[in-house]
């Protein structure tokens, strides 16, 4: 049996494990709630008008399918949380719950096991993200009668962001003893450490395009409408925050930045898992 066949087997059963867990359905329910709420609040509070009330009328951006899409499909946090939910304990639990004593003494390479688990986590996360985008696409059709082409790029970036976060979670999961610790470490790293670095670089006048969190934000930049242009009125003077550099993200560059992180971090987690002993 080839390693590719074994990879398919590992992916299939790891995915089965993921979708049997309550957290999959919990994440799915919360996703539906979040998207529906975003759509409802956008329309109910008339956000485009309210957000731009400090901007001169001539400079305002009118409500459109693109602007609506920026709001309802810019869910980097959804991609991040879903990825962390599924990936955080994937490797660590084999050691923590001792299921590795059943899985590892098999004629299968550890690389195959890690990649299979990775694919299963990605499929579970992608399912959640796809549901969110499908609801958003449905809302776009209902309210505007069209789906902007930028949604494809946005979806691509959301999926790539989830790959990066899964890879990051795999590193912690392969190093730490517990799944909970790996989950928290991943969230803290992505949402606190990366943010602090990106923000500091922005304040110092550098564009942190190479930071994963910053690259992930590019999923809102695929529609040709900048969230900053709309929200700028709330901040005053078109600044994101006083003194911060405001640079527009390049979706293509951001995609490749995320891809680079995803591959490099996965490579590290494979290396660590291969060497980890079942003590």
């Amino acid at each position: 049996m080839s390693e590719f066949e074994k990879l398919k087997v590992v992916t299939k059963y790891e995915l089965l494990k993921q979708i049997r867990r309550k957290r999959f359905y919990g994440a799915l329910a919360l996703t539906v709630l979040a998207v529906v709420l975003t759509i409802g609040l956008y329309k109910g509070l008339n956000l485009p008008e309210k957000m731009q009330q400090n901007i001169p009328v001539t400079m305002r951006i009118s409500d459109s399918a693109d602007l609506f899409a920026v709001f309802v499909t810019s869910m980097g946090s959804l991609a991040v949380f879903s990825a962390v939910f599924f990936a955080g304990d994937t490797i660590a639990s084999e050691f923590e719950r001792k299921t590795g004593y059943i899985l590892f003494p098999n004629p299968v390479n550890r690389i195959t096991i890690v990649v299979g688990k990775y694919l299963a986590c990605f499929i579970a996360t992608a399912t959640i993200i796809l549901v969110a985008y499908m609801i958003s696409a449905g809302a776009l059709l209902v309210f505007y009668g069209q789906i902007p082409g930028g949604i494809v790029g946005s979806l691509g970036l959301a999926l790539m962001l989830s790959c990066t976060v899964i890879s990051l979670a795999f590193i912690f999961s392969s190093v730490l003893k517990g799944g909970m610790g790996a989950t928290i470490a991943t969230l803290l790293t992505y949402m606190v450490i990366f943010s602090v670095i990106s923000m500091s670089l922005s304040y110092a006048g550098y564009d942190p395009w190479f930071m994963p969190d910053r690259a992930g934000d590019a999923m809102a930049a695929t529609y040709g409408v900048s969230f900053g242009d709309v929200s700028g009125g709330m901040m005053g003077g078109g600044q994101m925050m006083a003194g911060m550099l405001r640079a527009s993200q390049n979706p293509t560059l951001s995609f490749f930045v995320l891809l680079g992180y995803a591959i490099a971090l996965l490579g590290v987690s494979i290396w660590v898992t291969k060497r980890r002993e079942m003590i």
Partner: protein
Amino acid sequence: MPDSILVKGLTRYYNGFLALDNLSLRVKWNEDVALLGPNGAGKTTALKILCGLIRPSKGTAYLAGINVMEERERAISQVGAILETPEFYPFLTPNETLRYLGRLRGMSERELDDRIMEVLKLIRLEDWVNVKIEKFSRGMKQRLALAQALLHDPPILILDEPSLGLDPRGMVEIRNILKEARKKKTVFFASHLLTEVEQICKKVAIIDRGKLRAYDDIARLKKKYRSFERAYLKLTEGSI
């Protein structure tokens, strides 16, 4: 023909603590050997090295003539193993678990259709084939662990305390299965239960504080020390 199991100078340290000290032994095909020793003697460490779960600090191990350190996957394909107190994925059923492991061991779906029921009947879990393992007791998991070890009909069985957590009936049943298995397979198992070792094996390797103290037929040890129990106590003197 190479030996079934060959261990040469296995040594393992855990952060400076010597868990296994230059262990060497040879198990011939279809031989049944027990690795006997007090808690912390190094039994599980030896079995983990044989199954490629940990690396030795020194020494080598071969399964069916294949170096475990150099060709782990090929060596491990010769083995069915139970290590420590096995845990299973709680959201999967025995059918799904055995199918997963069987496929990884190169078995086809068709082969597995028959074989899964066969091994589940053997360990008397056939009525639980589609019940999630989260509902299983400790003893049922131990039975399932034996089922997965036997699933691909491997020529070598490596078992760590195979009757751990079983009730008296379960212990008898497992011992009978192992007695039957040893007719066609090499059975190498760790235990600290003298009665179990005597019932299943003819030969015993007694280790204490990582060192091999004796490797001989049980009958010969009985003769030399007047009883198997006295042999064990004498050879593991000084242990807790």
